[in-house]
Protein backbone atom coordinates (compact mmCIF):
# COMPACT_ATOMS: atom_id res chain seq x y z
CA UNK A 1 0.00 0.00 0.00
CA UNK A 2 3.01 2.25 0.53
CA UNK A 3 3.85 1.66 -3.12
CA UNK A 4 0.34 2.73 -4.09
CA UNK A 5 0.81 5.92 -2.07
CA UNK A 6 4.13 6.50 -3.84
CA UNK A 7 2.54 6.00 -7.28
CA UNK A 8 -0.43 8.19 -6.38
CA UNK A 9 1.93 10.92 -5.23
CA UNK A 10 3.84 11.01 -8.51
CA UNK A 11 0.85 10.37 -10.75
CA UNK A 12 -0.44 13.95 -10.82
CA UNK A 13 2.56 16.20 -11.34
CA UNK A 14 0.78 19.46 -10.58
CA UNK A 15 -0.63 18.13 -7.32
CA UNK A 16 2.80 16.74 -6.48
CA UNK A 17 4.47 20.11 -7.09
CA UNK A 18 1.84 21.96 -5.04
CA UNK A 19 2.00 19.61 -2.06
CA UNK A 20 5.75 19.10 -1.98
CA UNK A 21 6.47 22.71 -2.98
CA UNK A 22 4.09 24.05 -0.35
CA UNK A 23 5.66 21.99 2.39
CA UNK A 24 9.14 22.85 1.14
CA UNK A 25 8.36 26.57 1.29
CA UNK A 26 6.84 26.31 4.74
CA UNK A 27 9.83 24.31 5.98
CA UNK A 28 12.21 26.76 4.32
CA UNK A 29 10.45 29.59 6.12
CA UNK A 30 10.78 27.89 9.52
CA UNK A 31 14.34 26.70 8.87
CA UNK A 32 15.54 30.02 7.44
CA UNK A 33 14.15 31.99 10.35
CA UNK A 34 15.83 29.64 12.78
CA UNK A 35 19.01 29.76 10.71
CA UNK A 36 18.95 33.57 10.62
CA UNK A 37 18.69 33.77 14.39
CA UNK A 38 21.27 31.03 14.94
CA UNK A 39 23.54 32.93 12.56
CA UNK A 40 22.90 36.19 14.41
CA UNK A 41 23.63 34.44 17.72
CA UNK A 42 26.92 33.14 16.37
CA UNK A 43 27.87 36.46 14.78
CA UNK A 44 26.91 38.46 17.82
CA UNK A 45 29.25 36.44 20.01
CA UNK A 46 31.99 36.37 17.40
CA UNK A 47 34.07 38.98 19.25
CA UNK A 48 33.83 37.08 22.55
CA UNK A 49 34.42 33.67 20.96
CA UNK A 50 37.47 34.89 18.97
CA UNK A 51 38.91 37.19 21.62
CA UNK A 52 41.49 34.64 22.72
CA UNK A 53 40.51 35.09 26.38
CA UNK A 54 39.77 32.23 28.76
CA UNK A 55 37.93 34.44 31.24
CA UNK A 56 35.99 37.72 30.95
CA UNK A 57 35.93 39.97 34.02
CA UNK A 58 33.27 42.66 34.17
CA UNK A 59 31.60 45.01 36.61
CA UNK A 60 29.68 43.07 39.24
CA UNK A 61 26.46 41.56 37.85
CA UNK A 62 27.29 42.51 34.27
CA UNK A 63 27.19 39.21 32.40
CA UNK A 64 27.37 40.16 28.73
CA UNK A 65 28.27 42.97 26.31
CA UNK A 66 25.19 43.58 24.17
CA UNK A 67 23.15 46.58 25.38
CA UNK A 68 25.08 46.82 28.66
CA UNK A 69 27.74 49.01 30.21
CA UNK A 70 30.53 47.70 32.38
CA UNK A 71 32.80 50.00 34.34
CA UNK A 72 35.52 48.95 36.74
CA UNK A 73 38.39 50.79 38.42
CA UNK A 74 41.84 50.29 36.79
CA UNK A 75 43.09 48.95 40.14
CA UNK A 76 41.20 45.76 39.32
CA UNK A 77 43.93 44.98 36.77
CA UNK A 78 46.66 44.57 39.41
CA UNK A 79 44.27 42.78 41.78
CA UNK A 80 43.52 40.22 39.12
CA UNK A 81 47.16 39.86 38.01
CA UNK A 82 48.10 38.78 41.55
CA UNK A 83 45.91 35.69 41.39
CA UNK A 84 48.04 32.59 40.70
CA UNK A 85 47.52 30.82 37.40
CA UNK A 86 46.83 33.97 35.41
CA UNK A 87 49.29 34.51 32.56
CA UNK A 88 48.02 37.61 30.73
CA UNK A 89 45.50 40.37 31.45
CA UNK A 90 44.24 42.71 28.73
CA UNK A 91 41.96 45.59 29.74
CA UNK A 92 39.58 46.90 27.11
CA UNK A 93 37.16 49.80 26.94
CA UNK A 94 33.87 49.24 25.24
CA UNK A 95 30.72 51.06 24.22
CA UNK A 96 28.25 51.02 21.38
CA UNK A 97 28.53 53.90 18.92
CA UNK A 98 28.53 54.74 15.22
CA UNK A 99 31.17 54.41 12.53
CA UNK A 100 30.33 57.39 10.30
CA UNK A 101 31.56 57.93 6.77
CA UNK A 102 29.76 60.73 4.93
CA UNK A 103 26.09 59.91 5.09
CA UNK A 104 26.77 56.27 5.95
CA UNK A 105 26.30 55.53 9.67
CA UNK A 106 26.84 52.01 10.99
CA UNK A 107 26.26 50.86 14.53
CA UNK A 108 29.39 49.28 16.05
CA UNK A 109 30.91 47.90 19.22
CA UNK A 110 33.81 50.30 19.74
CA UNK A 111 36.68 48.47 21.40
CA UNK A 112 39.51 50.44 22.95
CA UNK A 113 42.65 48.27 22.74
CA UNK A 114 45.99 48.73 24.56
CA UNK A 115 48.99 48.88 22.21
CA UNK A 116 50.26 45.38 21.33
CA UNK A 117 47.35 43.78 23.18
CA UNK A 118 47.74 39.98 23.11
CA UNK A 119 43.95 39.49 23.17
CA UNK A 120 40.78 41.27 22.13
CA UNK A 121 41.94 42.55 18.74
CA UNK A 122 40.72 41.59 15.24
CA UNK A 123 41.25 37.84 14.69
CA UNK A 124 40.96 37.77 10.91
CA UNK A 125 42.38 40.56 8.84
CA UNK A 126 41.48 41.17 5.22
CA UNK A 127 43.90 44.01 4.66
CA UNK A 128 46.19 46.38 6.60
CA UNK A 129 47.36 46.35 10.22
CA UNK A 130 45.81 44.38 13.10
CA UNK A 131 46.42 46.89 15.90
CA UNK A 132 45.48 50.57 15.95
CA UNK A 133 47.78 53.37 17.11
CA UNK A 134 46.65 56.84 18.14
CA UNK A 135 44.27 58.34 15.59
CA UNK A 136 43.82 55.03 13.80
CA UNK A 137 41.04 52.50 13.53
CA UNK A 138 40.37 49.04 12.20
CA UNK A 139 36.88 48.58 10.86
CA UNK A 140 35.00 45.69 9.29
CA UNK A 141 35.61 45.02 5.62
CA UNK A 142 31.87 44.88 4.78
CA UNK A 143 31.25 48.22 6.48
CA UNK A 144 34.14 49.74 4.54
CA UNK A 145 32.75 48.30 1.32
CA UNK A 146 29.28 49.63 2.13
CA UNK A 147 30.72 53.07 2.93
CA UNK A 148 32.94 52.91 -0.20
CA UNK A 149 36.12 53.54 1.79
CA UNK A 150 39.38 51.69 2.21
CA UNK A 151 42.77 51.81 3.91
CA UNK A 152 43.89 55.39 4.43
CA UNK A 153 40.39 56.89 4.38
CA UNK A 154 38.86 58.63 7.38
CA UNK A 155 35.85 57.66 9.46
CA UNK A 156 34.25 59.37 12.41
CA UNK A 157 33.95 57.48 15.72
CA UNK A 158 32.77 59.03 19.00
CA UNK A 159 32.75 62.39 17.25
CA UNK A 160 36.42 62.24 16.15
CA UNK A 161 38.14 61.41 12.89
CA UNK A 162 40.17 58.19 12.67
CA UNK A 163 42.28 56.92 9.78
CA UNK A 164 41.41 53.41 8.65
CA UNK A 165 44.58 51.28 8.91
CA UNK A 166 43.03 47.79 8.80
CA UNK A 167 40.00 45.93 7.49
CA UNK A 168 38.86 43.00 9.57
CA UNK A 169 36.66 40.06 8.59
CA UNK A 170 33.90 38.22 10.50
CA UNK A 171 33.33 41.32 12.63
CA UNK A 172 29.89 42.24 11.39
CA UNK A 173 26.42 40.94 12.04
CA UNK A 174 22.83 41.81 11.31
CA UNK A 175 22.76 44.44 14.07
CA UNK A 176 26.22 45.95 14.24
CA UNK A 177 29.94 45.56 13.57
CA UNK A 178 33.12 45.83 15.66
CA UNK A 179 35.56 48.74 15.30
CA UNK A 180 38.91 48.89 17.08
CA UNK A 181 40.67 52.07 18.27
CA UNK A 182 43.54 52.54 20.70
CA UNK A 183 42.67 52.60 24.40
CA UNK A 184 44.40 56.00 24.76
CA UNK A 185 42.08 57.54 22.13
CA UNK A 186 39.11 55.91 23.83
CA UNK A 187 40.09 57.41 27.23
CA UNK A 188 40.56 60.84 25.70
CA UNK A 189 37.15 60.79 24.03
CA UNK A 190 35.43 59.20 27.01
CA UNK A 191 37.06 61.52 29.52
CA UNK A 192 37.53 58.91 32.18
CA UNK A 193 41.08 57.62 32.65
CA UNK A 194 40.43 55.53 35.74
CA UNK A 195 37.91 53.11 34.25
CA UNK A 196 38.04 50.00 32.19
CA UNK A 197 35.09 48.01 30.77
CA UNK A 198 36.30 44.42 30.71
CA UNK A 199 39.39 42.41 31.52
CA UNK A 200 40.33 39.65 29.08
CA UNK A 201 42.29 36.98 30.88
CA UNK A 202 44.55 34.21 29.62
CA UNK A 203 45.35 31.54 32.18
CA UNK A 204 47.96 28.85 32.53
CA UNK A 205 46.72 25.98 30.30
CA UNK A 206 47.17 23.53 33.17
CA UNK A 207 44.71 25.43 35.35
CA UNK A 208 40.93 25.28 35.24
CA UNK A 209 39.18 28.38 33.89
CA UNK A 210 36.18 27.99 36.17
CA UNK A 211 38.42 27.61 39.27
CA UNK A 212 40.35 30.77 38.39
CA UNK A 213 37.10 32.63 37.65
CA UNK A 214 35.83 31.62 41.08
CA UNK A 215 39.09 32.78 42.68
CA UNK A 216 38.81 36.16 40.92
CA UNK A 217 35.30 36.67 42.24
CA UNK A 218 36.44 35.63 45.73
CA UNK A 219 39.49 37.90 45.83
CA UNK A 220 38.53 40.96 43.80
CA UNK A 221 35.68 43.12 44.95
CA UNK A 222 32.74 44.20 42.76
CA UNK A 223 33.55 42.10 39.73
CA UNK A 224 31.95 39.20 37.91
CA UNK A 225 34.31 36.67 36.33
CA UNK A 226 32.97 34.24 33.76
CA UNK A 227 34.58 31.58 31.65
CA UNK A 228 34.44 32.77 27.99
CA UNK A 229 31.96 30.04 27.01
CA UNK A 230 29.57 31.17 29.77
CA UNK A 231 30.02 34.83 28.88
CA UNK A 232 29.28 33.99 25.24
CA UNK A 233 26.25 31.94 26.24
CA UNK A 234 24.90 34.88 28.28
CA UNK A 235 25.30 37.09 25.23
CA UNK A 236 23.37 34.60 23.10
CA UNK A 237 20.64 34.43 25.69
CA UNK A 238 20.07 38.15 25.44
CA UNK A 239 19.56 37.86 21.68
CA UNK A 240 17.37 34.83 22.13
CA UNK A 241 15.22 36.54 24.73
CA UNK A 242 14.77 39.46 22.39
CA UNK A 243 13.80 37.30 19.41
CA UNK A 244 11.98 34.30 20.89
CA UNK A 245 8.49 35.70 20.37
CA UNK A 246 9.21 36.67 16.76
CA UNK A 247 10.68 33.24 16.01
CA UNK A 248 7.79 31.44 17.69
CA UNK A 249 5.23 33.48 15.79
CA UNK A 250 6.95 33.04 12.43
CA UNK A 251 7.48 29.34 13.08
CA UNK A 252 3.80 29.01 13.88
CA UNK A 253 2.88 30.82 10.67
CA UNK A 254 5.23 28.52 8.72
CA UNK A 255 3.68 25.52 10.45
CA UNK A 256 0.16 26.71 9.58
CA UNK A 257 1.11 27.31 5.93
CA UNK A 258 2.63 23.83 5.71
CA UNK A 259 -0.37 22.30 7.42
CA UNK A 260 -2.89 24.11 5.20
CA UNK A 261 -1.08 23.13 2.00
CA UNK A 262 -0.64 19.53 3.07
CA UNK A 263 -4.15 19.08 4.45
CA UNK A 264 -5.60 20.45 1.23
CA UNK A 265 -3.45 18.37 -1.10
CA UNK A 266 -3.81 15.12 0.84
CA UNK A 267 -7.56 15.73 0.99
CA UNK A 268 -7.90 16.50 -2.73
CA UNK A 269 -5.71 13.54 -3.61
CA UNK A 270 -7.90 11.25 -1.49
CA UNK A 271 -11.00 12.67 -3.15
CA UNK A 272 -9.43 12.14 -6.58
CA UNK A 273 -8.72 8.51 -5.70
CA UNK A 274 -11.98 8.02 -3.79
CA UNK A 275 -13.43 5.58 -6.30
CA UNK A 276 -10.19 3.61 -6.36
CA UNK A 277 -10.23 3.32 -2.58
CA UNK A 278 -13.83 2.13 -2.95
CA UNK A 279 -12.69 -0.53 -5.42
CA UNK A 280 -9.97 -1.69 -3.06
CA UNK A 281 -12.51 -1.83 -0.25
CA UNK A 282 -14.87 -3.89 -2.42
CA UNK A 283 -12.04 -6.22 -3.39
CA UNK A 284 -11.36 -6.86 0.28
CA UNK A 285 -8.89 -4.24 1.50
CA UNK A 286 -9.36 -3.44 5.16
CA UNK A 287 -9.69 0.18 6.27
CA UNK A 288 -6.24 -0.14 7.89
CA UNK A 289 -4.73 -0.83 4.44
CA UNK A 290 -6.30 2.32 3.04
CA UNK A 291 -5.35 4.41 6.08
CA UNK A 292 -1.80 3.19 5.54
CA UNK A 293 -1.92 4.49 1.97
CA UNK A 294 -3.20 7.93 2.99
CA UNK A 295 -0.72 8.27 5.86
CA UNK A 296 2.13 7.12 3.61
CA UNK A 297 1.05 9.62 0.95
CA UNK A 298 0.99 12.40 3.51
CA UNK A 299 4.29 11.34 5.07
CA UNK A 300 6.05 10.97 1.72
CA UNK A 301 4.92 14.43 0.59
CA UNK A 302 6.05 15.98 3.84
CA UNK A 303 9.40 14.20 3.89
CA UNK A 304 10.18 15.15 0.29
CA UNK A 305 9.05 18.71 1.10
CA UNK A 306 11.24 18.72 4.19
CA UNK A 307 14.29 17.47 2.27
CA UNK A 308 13.66 20.11 -0.38
CA UNK A 309 13.22 22.78 2.30
CA UNK A 310 16.54 21.82 3.91
CA UNK A 311 18.27 21.90 0.52
CA UNK A 312 16.82 25.32 -0.31
CA UNK A 313 17.93 26.69 3.06
CA UNK A 314 21.45 25.29 2.63
CA UNK A 315 21.54 26.79 -0.84
CA UNK A 316 20.38 30.14 0.54
CA UNK A 317 23.08 30.05 3.20
CA UNK A 318 25.74 29.50 0.50
CA UNK A 319 24.33 32.25 -1.70
CA UNK A 320 24.25 34.67 1.25
CA UNK A 321 27.94 34.00 1.92
CA UNK A 322 28.78 35.00 -1.65
CA UNK A 323 26.58 38.08 -1.47
CA UNK A 324 28.63 39.29 1.55
CA UNK A 325 25.54 40.50 3.38
CA UNK A 326 25.60 41.07 7.13
CA UNK A 327 23.41 38.00 7.38
CA UNK A 328 24.52 34.43 7.97
CA UNK A 329 22.22 31.41 7.86
CA UNK A 330 23.42 28.83 10.38
CA UNK A 331 21.34 25.62 10.37
CA UNK A 332 21.55 23.97 13.76
CA UNK A 333 20.77 20.38 14.72
CA UNK A 334 18.08 21.59 17.09
CA UNK A 335 16.45 23.49 14.26
CA UNK A 336 16.51 20.42 12.01
CA UNK A 337 14.97 18.37 14.78
CA UNK A 338 12.28 21.00 15.28
CA UNK A 339 11.25 21.15 11.60
CA UNK A 340 11.35 17.37 11.32
CA UNK A 341 9.00 17.09 14.28
CA UNK A 342 6.77 19.81 12.84
CA UNK A 343 6.69 17.87 9.54
CA UNK A 344 5.55 14.71 11.27
CA UNK A 345 2.79 16.62 13.06
CA UNK A 346 1.72 18.18 9.74
CA UNK A 347 1.67 14.75 8.05
CA UNK A 348 -0.41 13.26 10.85
CA UNK A 349 -2.95 16.09 10.99
CA UNK A 350 -3.26 16.25 7.19
CA UNK A 351 -4.23 12.58 7.08
CA UNK A 352 -7.07 12.85 9.61
CA UNK A 353 -9.80 14.21 7.34
CA UNK A 354 -9.05 11.88 4.40
CA UNK A 355 -9.02 8.93 6.80
CA UNK A 356 -12.50 9.91 7.99
CA UNK A 357 -13.58 10.07 4.33
CA UNK A 358 -12.27 6.59 3.66
CA UNK A 359 -13.80 5.15 6.82
CA UNK A 360 -17.22 6.24 5.58
CA UNK A 361 -16.70 4.92 2.05
CA UNK A 362 -19.32 2.36 0.97
CA UNK A 363 -17.68 -0.46 -1.05
CA UNK A 364 -21.01 -1.06 -2.81
CA UNK A 365 -20.38 2.21 -4.68
CA UNK A 366 -18.30 0.23 -7.19
CA UNK A 367 -21.48 -1.39 -8.46
CA UNK A 368 -23.17 1.96 -8.87
CA UNK A 369 -20.53 3.27 -11.24
CA UNK A 370 -19.41 5.99 -8.76
Amino acid sequence: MIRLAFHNLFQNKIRFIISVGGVALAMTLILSLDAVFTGVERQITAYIDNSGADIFVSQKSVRNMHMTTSSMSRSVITDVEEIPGIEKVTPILYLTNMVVSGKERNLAYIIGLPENAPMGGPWKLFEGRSYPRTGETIIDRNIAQKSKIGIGDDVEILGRKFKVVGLSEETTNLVNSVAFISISDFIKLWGNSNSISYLLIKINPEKSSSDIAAQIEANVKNVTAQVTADFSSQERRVVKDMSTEVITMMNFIGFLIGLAVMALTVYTSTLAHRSEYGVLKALGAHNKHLYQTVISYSLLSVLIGLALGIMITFLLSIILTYLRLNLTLAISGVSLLKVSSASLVIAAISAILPIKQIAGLDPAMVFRGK
Partner: protein
Amino acid sequence: MTSSTLRVSHVTKRYGKGITEINAVRDVSLSVAPGEIVLIMGPSGSGKTTLLSMLGAILKPTEGEIRLNGDVISAFAEDHLPEIRLRQFGFIFQDFNLLSALTILENVAIVAELAGMKRNFARKKGIDLLNGLGLGERLYFHPRKLSGGEKQRVAIARALINDPALILADEPTANLDSKIGHEIMKLLRNIAKEQNRSVIIVSHDQRIKDIADRILWLEDGQFKEMMSMAIDPICGMSVEREKAPATLEHEGATYYFCAKGCRDEFADNLKKNGVVGSMIF
Protein backbone atom coordinates in the same frame (compact mmCIF):
# COMPACT_ATOMS: atom_id res chain seq x y z
CA MET B 1 -9.02 -23.87 -5.93
CA THR B 2 -11.65 -24.58 -3.32
CA SER B 3 -14.69 -26.34 -4.74
CA SER B 4 -17.69 -24.65 -3.26
CA THR B 5 -21.32 -23.86 -3.72
CA LEU B 6 -23.10 -20.63 -3.07
CA ARG B 7 -26.48 -21.15 -1.54
CA VAL B 8 -28.85 -18.24 -1.08
CA SER B 9 -31.97 -18.93 0.97
CA HIS B 10 -34.94 -16.56 1.22
CA VAL B 11 -32.83 -13.45 1.12
CA THR B 12 -34.55 -10.09 1.50
CA LYS B 13 -33.01 -6.62 1.59
CA ARG B 14 -35.04 -3.70 2.84
CA TYR B 15 -34.04 -0.05 2.88
CA GLY B 16 -35.73 2.60 5.02
CA LYS B 17 -38.53 2.18 7.53
CA GLY B 18 -42.27 2.73 7.72
CA ILE B 19 -43.80 4.44 4.70
CA THR B 20 -40.35 4.95 3.13
CA GLU B 21 -39.52 1.26 3.31
CA ILE B 22 -38.35 -0.28 0.06
CA ASN B 23 -37.85 -3.97 -0.60
CA ALA B 24 -34.90 -4.00 -3.00
CA VAL B 25 -34.68 -7.80 -2.96
CA ARG B 26 -37.55 -10.02 -1.84
CA ASP B 27 -37.29 -13.59 -0.69
CA VAL B 28 -34.72 -14.66 -3.26
CA SER B 29 -33.31 -18.16 -3.22
CA LEU B 30 -30.56 -19.42 -5.45
CA SER B 31 -27.98 -22.13 -5.59
CA VAL B 32 -24.85 -22.05 -7.71
CA ALA B 33 -22.86 -25.20 -8.36
CA PRO B 34 -19.09 -25.29 -8.89
CA GLY B 35 -18.22 -24.43 -12.49
CA GLU B 36 -21.71 -23.14 -13.18
CA ILE B 37 -22.29 -19.83 -14.96
CA VAL B 38 -25.42 -17.99 -13.86
CA LEU B 39 -26.57 -14.90 -15.71
CA ILE B 40 -28.90 -12.58 -13.82
CA MET B 41 -30.82 -10.23 -16.05
CA GLY B 42 -33.53 -7.73 -15.37
CA PRO B 43 -34.62 -4.13 -15.89
CA SER B 44 -32.98 -1.17 -14.16
CA GLY B 45 -34.00 -0.89 -10.51
CA SER B 46 -34.93 -4.55 -10.33
CA GLY B 47 -32.51 -5.18 -7.44
CA LYS B 48 -29.64 -6.73 -9.43
CA THR B 49 -26.96 -4.52 -7.87
CA THR B 50 -28.32 -5.06 -4.36
CA LEU B 51 -28.40 -8.81 -4.92
CA LEU B 52 -24.87 -8.81 -6.35
CA SER B 53 -23.63 -6.75 -3.38
CA MET B 54 -25.16 -9.27 -0.97
CA LEU B 55 -23.76 -12.25 -2.90
CA GLY B 56 -20.31 -10.60 -2.78
CA ALA B 57 -20.42 -10.03 1.00
CA ILE B 58 -20.46 -6.27 0.50
CA LEU B 59 -23.98 -5.82 1.81
CA LYS B 60 -25.69 -7.82 4.53
CA PRO B 61 -29.23 -9.08 3.89
CA THR B 62 -32.08 -7.94 6.13
CA GLU B 63 -33.45 -11.47 6.18
CA GLY B 64 -32.37 -14.83 4.88
CA GLU B 65 -29.08 -16.64 4.66
CA ILE B 66 -26.14 -16.76 2.27
CA ARG B 67 -23.83 -19.74 2.53
CA LEU B 68 -20.47 -20.14 0.88
CA ASN B 69 -18.54 -23.37 1.36
CA GLY B 70 -21.08 -24.17 4.03
CA ASP B 71 -20.25 -21.01 6.00
CA VAL B 72 -23.11 -18.64 6.65
CA ILE B 73 -21.35 -15.51 5.41
CA SER B 74 -24.47 -13.38 5.89
CA ALA B 75 -24.05 -13.89 9.64
CA PHE B 76 -20.39 -12.83 9.74
CA ALA B 77 -19.44 -9.62 11.52
CA GLU B 78 -18.78 -6.61 9.27
CA ASP B 79 -15.06 -6.61 9.99
CA HIS B 80 -14.77 -10.23 8.83
CA LEU B 81 -16.33 -9.55 5.42
CA PRO B 82 -13.29 -7.93 3.72
CA GLU B 83 -11.35 -11.12 4.35
CA ILE B 84 -14.12 -13.20 2.76
CA ARG B 85 -14.27 -10.87 -0.26
CA LEU B 86 -10.51 -10.99 -0.64
CA ARG B 87 -10.12 -14.76 -0.53
CA GLN B 88 -13.42 -16.22 -1.73
CA PHE B 89 -14.65 -13.81 -4.40
CA GLY B 90 -13.27 -12.38 -7.59
CA PHE B 91 -14.91 -9.18 -8.79
CA ILE B 92 -15.20 -7.92 -12.36
CA PHE B 93 -16.73 -4.50 -12.89
CA GLN B 94 -18.43 -2.66 -15.71
CA ASP B 95 -15.86 0.19 -15.66
CA PHE B 96 -12.90 -2.20 -15.14
CA ASN B 97 -11.96 -0.18 -12.03
CA LEU B 98 -8.22 -0.59 -12.38
CA LEU B 99 -5.97 1.62 -10.27
CA SER B 100 -4.72 4.28 -12.65
CA ALA B 101 -1.39 4.92 -10.90
CA LEU B 102 -0.29 1.28 -11.04
CA THR B 103 0.93 -0.87 -13.91
CA ILE B 104 -1.30 -3.74 -14.89
CA LEU B 105 1.00 -6.20 -13.13
CA GLU B 106 0.80 -4.14 -9.94
CA ASN B 107 -2.97 -3.91 -10.34
CA VAL B 108 -3.16 -7.69 -10.25
CA ALA B 109 -0.46 -8.34 -7.67
CA ILE B 110 -1.75 -5.80 -5.14
CA VAL B 111 -4.83 -7.94 -4.48
CA ALA B 112 -2.66 -10.95 -3.66
CA GLU B 113 -0.47 -8.77 -1.45
CA LEU B 114 -3.57 -7.58 0.39
CA ALA B 115 -4.33 -11.25 1.07
CA GLY B 116 -0.91 -11.60 2.65
CA MET B 117 1.11 -13.00 -0.23
CA LYS B 118 4.78 -11.93 -0.41
CA ARG B 119 5.45 -9.34 -3.11
CA ASN B 120 7.68 -11.58 -5.21
CA PHE B 121 5.19 -14.44 -5.22
CA ALA B 122 2.31 -12.07 -5.94
CA ARG B 123 4.17 -10.62 -8.91
CA LYS B 124 5.12 -14.05 -10.23
CA LYS B 125 1.54 -15.25 -9.99
CA GLY B 126 0.34 -12.02 -11.59
CA ILE B 127 2.79 -12.47 -14.48
CA ASP B 128 1.62 -16.07 -15.01
CA LEU B 129 -2.02 -15.03 -15.04
CA LEU B 130 -1.48 -12.08 -17.35
CA ASN B 131 0.63 -14.21 -19.68
CA GLY B 132 -2.17 -16.77 -19.73
CA LEU B 133 -4.62 -14.06 -20.71
CA GLY B 134 -2.39 -12.81 -23.54
CA LEU B 135 -1.15 -9.70 -21.76
CA GLY B 136 2.47 -10.76 -21.34
CA GLU B 137 3.66 -7.87 -23.49
CA ARG B 138 1.71 -5.33 -21.48
CA LEU B 139 2.83 -6.13 -17.92
CA TYR B 140 4.33 -2.72 -17.24
CA PHE B 141 1.74 -0.66 -19.09
CA HIS B 142 -0.57 1.64 -17.19
CA PRO B 143 -4.31 1.01 -17.65
CA ARG B 144 -4.78 4.19 -19.73
CA LYS B 145 -2.61 2.63 -22.45
CA LEU B 146 -4.86 -0.44 -22.82
CA SER B 147 -7.96 -1.09 -24.89
CA GLY B 148 -11.28 -1.90 -23.21
CA GLY B 149 -10.90 -5.61 -23.87
CA GLU B 150 -7.38 -5.63 -22.45
CA LYS B 151 -8.52 -3.76 -19.35
CA GLN B 152 -11.27 -6.30 -18.77
CA ARG B 153 -8.75 -9.13 -19.14
CA VAL B 154 -6.60 -7.43 -16.49
CA ALA B 155 -9.70 -7.26 -14.29
CA ILE B 156 -10.23 -10.98 -14.86
CA ALA B 157 -6.61 -11.69 -13.88
CA ARG B 158 -7.10 -9.57 -10.76
CA ALA B 159 -10.31 -11.49 -9.98
CA LEU B 160 -8.46 -14.80 -10.27
CA ILE B 161 -5.26 -14.09 -8.39
CA ASN B 162 -6.50 -15.23 -4.98
CA ASP B 163 -8.08 -18.42 -6.42
CA PRO B 164 -11.66 -17.46 -5.60
CA ALA B 165 -14.46 -19.97 -5.48
CA LEU B 166 -16.88 -17.53 -7.05
CA ILE B 167 -16.48 -14.79 -9.63
CA LEU B 168 -19.01 -11.96 -9.59
CA ALA B 169 -19.20 -9.88 -12.74
CA ASP B 170 -21.21 -6.69 -12.94
CA GLU B 171 -22.11 -5.77 -16.54
CA PRO B 172 -18.71 -7.04 -17.77
CA THR B 173 -19.46 -6.29 -21.44
CA ALA B 174 -21.15 -2.91 -21.01
CA ASN B 175 -18.10 -0.91 -22.10
CA LEU B 176 -16.94 -3.31 -24.79
CA ASP B 177 -17.93 -3.72 -28.41
CA SER B 178 -19.86 -6.79 -29.39
CA LYS B 179 -16.89 -8.82 -30.67
CA ILE B 180 -14.62 -8.10 -27.70
CA GLY B 181 -17.55 -8.56 -25.31
CA HIS B 182 -18.17 -11.99 -26.70
CA GLU B 183 -14.48 -12.88 -26.47
CA ILE B 184 -14.41 -11.81 -22.81
CA MET B 185 -17.49 -13.91 -22.05
CA LYS B 186 -15.98 -16.94 -23.79
CA LEU B 187 -12.88 -16.42 -21.68
CA LEU B 188 -14.98 -16.36 -18.53
CA ARG B 189 -16.77 -19.48 -19.65
CA ASN B 190 -13.49 -21.29 -20.23
CA ILE B 191 -12.23 -20.23 -16.81
CA ALA B 192 -15.43 -21.46 -15.18
CA LYS B 193 -15.37 -24.80 -16.92
CA GLU B 194 -11.64 -25.49 -16.88
CA GLN B 195 -11.02 -24.30 -13.35
CA ASN B 196 -14.41 -25.34 -11.96
CA ARG B 197 -15.15 -21.87 -10.64
CA SER B 198 -18.69 -20.58 -10.30
CA VAL B 199 -19.50 -17.35 -12.11
CA ILE B 200 -22.44 -15.05 -11.50
CA ILE B 201 -22.93 -12.33 -14.09
CA VAL B 202 -25.32 -9.43 -13.82
CA SER B 203 -25.97 -7.94 -17.23
CA HIS B 204 -28.45 -6.31 -19.61
CA ASP B 205 -26.54 -7.67 -22.58
CA GLN B 206 -28.75 -10.13 -24.48
CA ARG B 207 -25.77 -11.16 -26.63
CA ILE B 208 -24.05 -13.00 -23.81
CA LYS B 209 -26.94 -15.32 -23.01
CA ASP B 210 -25.31 -18.15 -24.91
CA ILE B 211 -22.40 -18.52 -22.52
CA ALA B 212 -24.58 -19.00 -19.42
CA ASP B 213 -25.67 -22.32 -18.01
CA ARG B 214 -28.66 -20.69 -16.42
CA ILE B 215 -30.38 -17.35 -16.86
CA LEU B 216 -32.40 -15.77 -14.07
CA TRP B 217 -34.76 -12.86 -14.60
CA LEU B 218 -34.97 -10.46 -11.67
CA GLU B 219 -37.84 -8.03 -11.52
CA ASP B 220 -39.15 -6.04 -8.53
CA GLY B 221 -36.59 -7.78 -6.36
CA GLN B 222 -37.78 -11.28 -7.22
CA PHE B 223 -36.86 -13.98 -9.74
CA LYS B 224 -39.84 -14.04 -12.10
CA GLU B 225 -38.89 -16.64 -14.64
CA MET B 226 -36.03 -19.04 -14.92
CA MET B 227 -34.57 -19.92 -18.24
CA SER B 228 -32.57 -23.08 -18.31
CA MET B 229 -29.80 -23.39 -20.82
CA ALA B 230 -28.36 -26.34 -22.65
CA ILE B 231 -25.17 -26.74 -24.61
CA ASP B 232 -25.37 -27.50 -28.30
CA PRO B 233 -23.32 -30.78 -28.52
CA ILE B 234 -22.01 -29.84 -31.97
CA CYS B 235 -20.89 -26.19 -31.76
CA GLY B 236 -20.72 -25.81 -27.97
CA MET B 237 -23.05 -22.82 -27.83
CA SER B 238 -25.51 -22.31 -24.98
CA VAL B 239 -29.11 -22.57 -26.05
CA GLU B 240 -32.29 -21.67 -24.15
CA ARG B 241 -34.08 -24.97 -23.75
CA GLU B 242 -37.52 -23.44 -24.25
CA LYS B 243 -36.54 -21.47 -27.35
CA ALA B 244 -34.05 -23.84 -28.97
CA PRO B 245 -34.42 -23.73 -32.78
CA ALA B 246 -33.93 -27.50 -32.97
CA THR B 247 -34.15 -30.46 -30.57
CA LEU B 248 -33.59 -34.17 -30.76
CA GLU B 249 -34.72 -36.90 -28.39
CA HIS B 250 -32.72 -40.06 -28.31
CA GLU B 251 -32.98 -42.90 -25.81
CA GLY B 252 -34.79 -40.72 -23.26
CA ALA B 253 -32.37 -37.75 -23.49
CA THR B 254 -33.23 -34.43 -25.15
CA TYR B 255 -30.53 -32.54 -27.05
CA TYR B 256 -30.83 -28.83 -27.82
CA PHE B 257 -29.23 -27.15 -30.86
CA CYS B 258 -28.60 -23.61 -31.94
CA ALA B 259 -29.68 -24.46 -35.50
CA LYS B 260 -31.14 -27.29 -37.54
CA GLY B 261 -27.77 -27.77 -39.21
CA CYS B 262 -26.17 -28.70 -35.88
CA ARG B 263 -29.03 -31.11 -35.13
CA ASP B 264 -28.67 -32.80 -38.52
CA GLU B 265 -24.91 -33.12 -38.07
CA PHE B 266 -25.50 -34.65 -34.64
CA ALA B 267 -27.99 -37.14 -36.09
CA ASP B 268 -25.57 -38.05 -38.91
CA ASN B 269 -22.81 -38.66 -36.38
CA LEU B 270 -25.04 -41.00 -34.42
CA LYS B 271 -25.80 -42.93 -37.58
CA LYS B 272 -22.16 -43.05 -38.68
CA ASN B 273 -21.20 -44.43 -35.29
CA GLY B 274 -23.76 -47.20 -35.72
CA VAL B 275 -26.04 -45.96 -33.00
CA VAL B 276 -29.38 -47.67 -33.28
CA GLY B 277 -32.73 -46.74 -31.84
CA SER B 278 -35.33 -44.13 -32.53
CA MET B 279 -34.53 -40.45 -32.94
CA ILE B 280 -37.36 -37.98 -32.48
CA PHE B 281 -36.87 -34.63 -34.23
